[in-house]
């Protein structure tokens, strides 16, 4: 038991590793991802898109696997897969049942296809495993540039459409009446999610994208109904989980996704407890 704990939590050589360029790249990537994931998370939760995000990340995995096999950049494959999935999901109506079933169908097919593509890939196994569980070595300087550009793109788009998007996500009927193009914002937001998902897949892995795109938003929602405070809180939780998870994973040399998901989950539990303690007292 102690052996396992020692293996999970060791800081032998963490200091030296922090000096390595690839580790600094990974930390920077984690910080950028935390920023965009945290900004999107409260709206993903408000729109009830958890399952759609999961489906999108599995399609990013399919795209990444196809890219591996074809010998092109995994990032490009992941972006192609997730944007395609995001558009399909974004164009679906808001009828919950239909949306859920279509996502389930696409997700299952995409995952199956991805497994098949990986099996056909003759290269190193760690590349395959990395797509599912994430890996900090996946971040080289090219990927970092892609990450920077996508981060700026997502943040700039959010700065422009945030208010109508919040309106459409929380009060659709009045938003429509006031002329908000609700039907246009849906696929647009889905594409933003897809971009962030595609960035997250190589780092935290396809299975655990939810840990950075849902948990921070769900946690913040337990504490506050203020959109601004929720966004700040979600960014903080996502940053702590991603940067903290990266650092913790260094010395053990284990996938970062487990650390990230655990930290984010603990943050969620803490927020639930605080929310419950305060929820007894109704404001007003």
């Amino acid at each position, binding site marked *: 038991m102690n052996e396992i704990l020692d293996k999970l939590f060791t800081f032998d050589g963490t200091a030296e590793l922090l000096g390595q360029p690839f580790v600094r790249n990974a930390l920077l990537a984690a910080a950028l991802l935390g920023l965009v994931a945290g900004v999107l998370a*409260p709206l993903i*939760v*408000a729109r009830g898109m958890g399952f759609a995000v999961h489906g999108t990340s599995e399609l990013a995995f399919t795209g990444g696997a196809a890219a591996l096999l074809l010998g092109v950049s995994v990032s490009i494959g992941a972006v192609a897969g997730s944007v395609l999935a995001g558009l399909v999901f974004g164009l679906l109506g808001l009828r919950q049942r239909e949306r859920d079933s279509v996502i389930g169908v696409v997700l299952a097919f995409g995952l199956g296809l991805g497994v098949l593509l990986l099996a056909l890939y003759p290269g190193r196994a760690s590349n395959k495993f990395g797509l599912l569980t994430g890996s900090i070595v996946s971040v080289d300087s090219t990927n970092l540039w892609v990450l920077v550009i996508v981060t700026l793109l997502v943040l700039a788009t959010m*700065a*422009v*459409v*945030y*208010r*109508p998007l*919040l*309106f459409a996500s*929380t*009060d*659709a*009927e*009045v*938003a*429509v*009446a*006031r*002329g*908000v193009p609700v039907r246009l914002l849906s696929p647009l937001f889905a594409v933003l999610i897809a971009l962030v998902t595609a960035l997250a897949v190589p780092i935290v892995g396809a299975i655990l994208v939810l840990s950075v795109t849902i948990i921070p938003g769900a946690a913040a*929602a337990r504490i*506050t*109904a*203020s*959109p601004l405070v*929720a966004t700040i809180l979600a960014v903080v939780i996502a940053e702590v989980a991603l940067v903290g998870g990266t650092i913790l994973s260094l010395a053990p040399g284990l996938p970062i996704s487990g650390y990230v998901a655990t930290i984010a989950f603990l943050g969620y539990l803490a927020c639930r407890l605080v929310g419950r303690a305060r929820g007894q007292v*109704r*404001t*007003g």
Partner: protein
Amino acid sequence: MTRPHTADGREPAAVELRGATVRFGTRTLWEGLDLEIPGGEFVAVLGPNGSGKTTLLRVLLGLQPVQAGEVLVDGHHVRRGGEGIGYIPQQKAIPEDVPLRARDLVGLGLDGHHLGLGLRGRRDRARRVDEALAAVGATGYAGAPVGRLSGGEQQRLRVAQALVGDPRVLLCDEPLLSLDLAHQRTVSRLIDERRRTAGTAVLFVTHEINPILPLVDRVLYLVDGRFRFGTPDEVMTSETLSELYRTDVEVLRVRERLVVVGVEASGHCHGADGAVLPAEESVTP
């Protein structure tokens, strides 16, 4: 905001329809509808289900094009997202987990349809939201999550949300539905106050005229593409309604209330206050 003036220098009507016609496929909802509603007037829009009451609101919101005629709000042709219009939807419980505080819901009514972060003018925005909250007596729960408030409190916020933009016209789609009598009175009193002090014209779609009867200046009654526009005394008579419905309809005055007999079959009812009536199609298609 400067308002366009007509040639003789008068302010334009808050709402003006000239020969407005709406068709869905081969079915004509109404044809040649002429309306002129000055600022400050309270108009009740009545009629059975499917007579186009909600469609009229959609036309004024610029969501539904007319096949013929003109539609002007405050002297401007309507367009989607145009300024000068406030909208109160049917009372529906806001889900408990909606991540908005009361003041956020009202703020969205002010500028939620605008692009950009709106960082400039934040102080002015906060002041206007505070004023709107105070006007409906919601200051006490301005910071509360909207989903945790009662139906009556939520509907007060809907009034504030619709009025915070200082609209020339207020469109209400059965805003009293499923509210209890006390809250019905509060909400209609708030709307009435506004049109008297700020000269906002009110179009009030309802199945149930009695709760608002003392406030109503004129009634627009729609039935199967036919319509009548006039004061309650002109429109709410056995003769006029029989003509509109093309069947024998009797309108009785029982104390200060109107009871319409003979049209229950069409889903129309002027029964007891607060009766739960079938919800009509809402603005979202």
